[in-house]
C-alpha cells in the first residue's frame, strides 16, 4: 500500500467511525421511545420497501419527484463505481474488471446515471433558488445543508467524469469520450490529473459519509427503515387509550419519550421536502403550524436532549409549550393531508394528537370554546347543549320508525348531531329521507337514543369522553342487532366505520352519497336531469382522504345532470374546510380563515352551486361564500338536497 493509500485508508476508517457512531446515537435516541419496532408481517414490509422505497412510488406522486428518484437510483448505480474508486485509491491495482461482461455494462449505466444525476441536481438547484416553492423554505441552515449536499454530489460526479476522462474504463461512455476529446484532444493528461480526481472523488465520498447523519440527509439512512417499520393502521382510527390501566400515570404524549420508537424513527426520517406543509390548511392560512416544522422541531428536541435522556429518562422535558406551542397544537384540523402526502410515511398529525390528549386529559388545558363544547357533549350528548330528549324531533311526521318501534329495518340511519339539531342540516336529513323513501329503502333511526359519536372529543384529545360516547352508541346499536348503517355525516361515518370496532361495534357503514349513487345505479332513483346547473364538489377530508369516498358523490351529481367543474385541489388532495379536529368548535383567531381560502377556490370554478356532503363543510363553505359576498349568487348545498329536488 502506498502512503497515499494508507492515508486514504485511515480517512476511510475515520469517516466510517464517525458515521457509525452517529448512526448508533440516532438508533439509541429512537430507542428512547415506547414499544418496539415491529418485524412481523414481513411480506408487507418488504413490499413497501420495494415499491415505496426502491420504487420511489410515493416520491413520484409529484412531478418534481422524478429528480429525487433519479438521484436516488443514481446513488445505487454510482455506488458501484464509488466502491471501486475507494478501493482503487487504497490499492491502485484494484478493478472490478473481474466482473467480466458485466463490468462495461455497469460502467455504461454509471455514465447514464451520472448525467441524469447532474441534470437532476441542476433541476433541484433551480427549484430551490429560482422557483422557490414555499415548501422548500426553511432557516438558512437548512438551505446551506441543501447547497452543501448538492455541491458535494456535483463535485463527486465531476470527479467521476474527471477520472473517466483521464483513465477510461470499458463501456459505452459517450459523454466521457466527448469530454475527453474536448479537454485533451489527442494529448495526454497531466501526470497528477488522475490522482487529483481520484482524491477529490474519494474525499468527497468520505466527507459525504460523515456529513449525512448530521444533516437532513440522515433520511438516506432512515427513510427506508421508516417505510419498512411502518405499522399497519386503520385510517381514521385513533387507537383507544387504555384508561383502565391502574398503573398508567400518564396519558397521551407529555415528553418525547412518550412517543413510540416508530414515531421517533419518523422524526429521523424527515427529508424536509415540505410536501406536508404545502398541503396543510393551517399553514396555508397563516397559522404557526407547519407539519414539517412540527417534525423538525421534535427531531431537534430529540437529538438535543437525547444524550441526556438516554442517561436519565426522567430528565425528558415536556414538549408543551416549548417545543409545540398552543397555537401550533390547536391549529390542526386533522385533515390528514400531511400524512397522506408524505413520501416516507411520516405521521405529523398523529404526533400532535398525542400531545392534545395529554393537554386535555392530563392538564385540562385547551381552548375554552372547545371546553364548552365538550361539556355540552358530556351533558346533552351534542355540541350545542340542545336537549337529548329532542334528538329525534327532526323526524316527526316523516314516517321514519325508531328502532325501538321497529328493529327489523335494513338500515339504521345514524342521523348525527347536525342532522338532528342544526335546522340547516335537518333539511339535508329530510332530503335524504325523501330519497330513501322514494327508493323504497327500509330504514329507521335511533331517535333520542342516539348519542354523539365522539368524533370531536376524540380529535380534541378527550379519549375518556370519546370512549364513553362510542361505547354507549355501540351498546345501543348492538342491542337492536344493527348491521347496516347509513350516515349523513363523514365524521359519524368515520367514527362508526373506523372507531366503533374498537368498542365491539362491527357495522357495514355507508355514507349517504354512496347509498344515493348505488340507488341511482340500480335505477331506484331517477333524477330529472333537466334542472341541473353547474356545480363544483368540495370533498370532505373524512370522506375522501380518510375513507376514499370521492367517486360516489361525483357519480350522484353527474346522474343529476350537473356538470362538475373540479377545483384544483380535489379528491384525496382536497383542501379542508377548516372544521375538522374540533376546529369547528374553536375560534380561528390567527391568519386568514381556512373556509374563506377554500370558498375562493370553489368560487373560482364559476359554478353556481357548491356541493358538499358533510354538515361541517356545509356550514364552513356557506360562511366562506357569505364572507366573499357571493351568498346571493352561489348556493352551497348537500348532494342529497340537490338530488331530492330532482325527483
Amino acid at each position: 500500500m502506498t502512503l497515499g493509500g494508507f492515508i486514504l485508508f485511515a480517512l476511510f476508517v475515520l469517516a466510517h467511525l464517525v458515521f457509525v457512531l452517529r448512526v448508533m446515537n440516532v438508533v439509541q435516541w429512537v430507542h428512547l421511545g415506547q414499544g418496539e419496532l415491529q418485524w412481523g408481517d414481513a411480506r408487507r414490509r418488504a413490499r413497501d420497501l420495494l415499491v415505496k422505497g426502491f420504487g420511489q412510488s410515493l416520491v413520484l406522486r409529484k412531478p418534481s419527484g422524478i429528480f429525487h428518484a433519479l438521484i436516488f437510483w443514481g446513488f445505487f448505480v454510482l455506488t458501484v463505481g464509488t466502491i471501486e474508486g475507494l478501493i482503487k485509491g487504497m490499492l491502485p491495482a484494484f478493478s472490478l474488471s473481474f466482473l467480466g461482461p458485466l463490468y462495461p455494462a455497469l460502467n455504461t449505466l454509471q455514465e447514464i446515471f451520472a448525467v441524469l444525476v447532474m441534470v437532476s441536481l441542476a433541476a433541484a438547484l433551480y427549484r430551490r433558488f429560482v422557483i422557490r416553492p414555499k415548501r422548500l423554505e426553511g432557516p438558512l441552515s437548512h438551505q446551506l445543508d441543501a447547497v452543501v449536499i448538492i455541491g458535494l454530489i456535483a463535485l463527486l460526479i465531476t470527479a467521476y467524469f474527471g477520472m473517466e476522462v483521464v483513465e477510461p474504463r470499458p463501456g459505452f461512455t459517450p459523454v466521457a469520450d466527448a469530454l475527453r476529446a474536448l479537454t485533451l484532444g489527442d494529448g495526454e493528461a497531466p501526470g497528477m490529473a488522475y490522482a487529483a480526481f481520484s482524491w477529490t472523488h474519494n474525499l468527497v465520498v468520505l466527507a459525504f459519509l460523515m456529513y449525512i447523519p448530521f444533516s437532513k440527509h440522515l433520511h438516506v439512512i432512515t427513510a427506508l427503515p421508516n417505510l419498512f417499520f411502518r405499522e399497519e393502521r386503520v385510517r381514521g382510527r385513533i387507537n383507544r387509550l387504555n384508561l383502565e390501566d391502574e398503573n398508567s400515570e400518564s396519558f397521551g404524549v407529555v415528553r418525547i419519550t412518550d412517543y413510540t420508537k416508530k414515531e421517533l424513527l419518523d422524526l429521523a426520517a424527515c427529508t424536509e421536502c415540505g410536501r406536508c406543509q404545502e398541503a396543510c390548511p393551517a399553514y396555508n392560512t397563516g397559522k404557526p403550524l407547519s407539519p414539517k416544522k412540527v417534525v423538525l422541531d421534535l427531531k431537534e428536541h430529540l437529538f438535543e436532549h437525547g444524550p441526556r435522556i438516554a442517561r436519565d429518562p426522567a430528565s425528558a422535558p415536556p414538549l408543551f409549550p416549548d417545543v409545540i406551542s398552543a397555537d401550533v397544537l390547536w391549529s390542526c384540523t386533522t385533515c390528514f393531508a400531511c400524512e397522506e402526502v408524505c413520501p416516507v410515511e411520516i405521521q405529523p398529525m398523529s404526533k400532535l394528537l398525542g400531545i392534545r390528549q395529554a393537554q386535555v386529559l392530563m392538564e385540562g388545558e385547551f381552548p375554552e370554546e372547545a371546553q364548552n363544547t365538550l361539556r355540552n357533549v358530556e351533558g346533552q350528548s351534542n355540541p350545542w347543549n340542545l336537549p337529548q330528549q329532542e334528538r329525534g324531533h327532526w323526524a316527526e311526521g316523516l314516517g321514519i320508525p325508531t328502532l325501538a318501534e321497529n328493529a327489523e329495518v335494513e338500515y339504521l340511519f345514524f342521523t348525527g348531531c347536525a342532522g338532528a339539531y342544526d335546522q340547516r342540516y335537518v333539511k339535508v336529513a329530510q332530503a335524504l329521507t325523501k330519497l330513501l323513501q322514494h327508493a323504497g329503502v327500509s330504514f329507521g333511526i335511533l331517535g333520542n337514543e342516539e348519542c354523539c359519536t365522539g368524533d370531536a372529543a376524540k380529535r380534541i384529545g378527550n379519549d375518556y369522553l370519546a370512549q364513553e360516547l362510542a361505547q354507549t352508541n355501540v351498546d345501543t346499536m348492538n342491542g337492536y342487532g344493527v348491521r347496516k348503517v347509513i350516515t349523513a355525516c363523514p365524521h359519524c361515518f368515520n367514527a362508526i366505520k373506523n372507531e366503533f370496532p374498537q368498542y365491539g361495534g362491527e357495522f357495514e357503514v355507508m355514507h349517504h352519497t354512496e347509498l344515493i349513487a348505488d340507488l341511482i345505479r340500480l335505477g331506484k332513483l331517477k333524477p330529472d336531469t333537466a334542472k341541473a346547473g353547474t356545480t363544483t364538489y368540495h370533498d370532505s377530508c373524512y370522506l375522501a382522504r380518510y375513507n376514499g369516498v370521492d367517486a360516489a358523490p361525483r357519480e350522484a351529481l353527474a346522474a343529476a345532470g350537473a356538470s362538475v367543474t373540479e377545483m384544483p385541489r380535489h379528491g384525496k388532495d382536497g383542501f379542508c374546510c377548516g372544521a375538522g379536529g374540533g376546529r369547528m368548535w374553536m375560534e380561528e383567531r390567527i391568519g386568514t380563515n381556512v373556509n374563506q381560502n377554500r370558498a375562493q377556490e370553489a368560487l373560482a370554478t364559476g359554478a353556481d352551486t357548491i356541493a358538499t356532503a358533510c354538515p361541517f363543510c356545509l356550514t364552513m363553505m356557506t360562511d366562506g361564500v357569505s364572507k366573499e359576498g357571493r351568498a346571493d349568487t352561489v348556493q352551497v348545498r348537500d348532494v342529497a338536497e340537490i338530488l331530492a329536488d330532482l325527483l
Partner: protein
Amino acid sequence: MKIAVLVKRVPDTASVFKVAPDEKSVVTDGLKYIISPYDEHAAEEAIKIQEAGGAEIVVISLGGDDCQETMRTVMAMGADRGVLVSVPAGLSIGAHGVAQALAAAVKREAPDLVLAGKQAVDDDASQVPERVAELLDLPHASVVSKLELADGKALVDREIEGGKYRIELPLPAVVTIEKGINTPRYPKLPNIMKAKKKPLDTVTLEDLGLSADAVKNQAEVTKVASPRTDRRNQIVGGDTADAVKEVVRLLRDEEKAL
C-alpha cells in the same frame, strides 16, 4: 384552613322538563344530572384557595346515593373528601330541613369557610346556605363575585342590583358564589381516577340527631305547569311603523318584559 363546599345534584337545565301526570312533579326519565353550576363555581373557588395557600376541602351534599357521583366530580377538581348526608328515597325535605341537616354536617367538620352556589338550578330555592349560616350563627354573604382571604377574614364583593357591596367577614363564615367569579377547571383524568379513591363518608339524619319529622317539607309543591314550551313564531306584519308598534306592545303589555 378548612373549607366546606356545599353542592347539589340537579337535572341539567338544558333538558326538557315535562309535567308528570300527577301535575305535581316533572318527568325525570331522560333527564341528565349535573352539579348545580353555581356550586361548581364555589368548588372552583375553594380549590383556588387551596392552590394559593393550602386548604383541606370537604365536599358536603345531601340526597341519595347518586349524589356520590356529583361529589366525586368535585373531588376530581381537587376536594379532599366528602360527606354525604344520605336521605331515604321518597322523603320530601324542604329548605328548612335540608339546612338543618347540612348545618349539623358542617358543624361536625368545623370549617373556617363554607362555600356554596348562590342557588341550585332545580328548585332555585336560593336559601339553604344562608340558613346554614344562621343556624350555626355564622356571618355570611350572598351572591359573591370576588373573594379574598387575609388575616382570618374574608373580603368579598357582593353583587346587588346596579352595584356591589364590599364586605369584610370574620371567619368562619358562609359565602355563596355568583357565576362570574371564576371559570371552573376542566377535570384532569388522573384526578378523576384519584377521586374515585378519596374518602366519602355517608351519614344519616339519625347520625346527625335529626328525625325525619324534624326535616319534613312544609312547603310542598302542589301543582306544576309548563309556562310555554315552544316559541311563538309569530310574524308581525304590516308596514314598518305598524309592525314596530305591535312588537313593542307585545313586549310591554303581553310579555311584560319591556
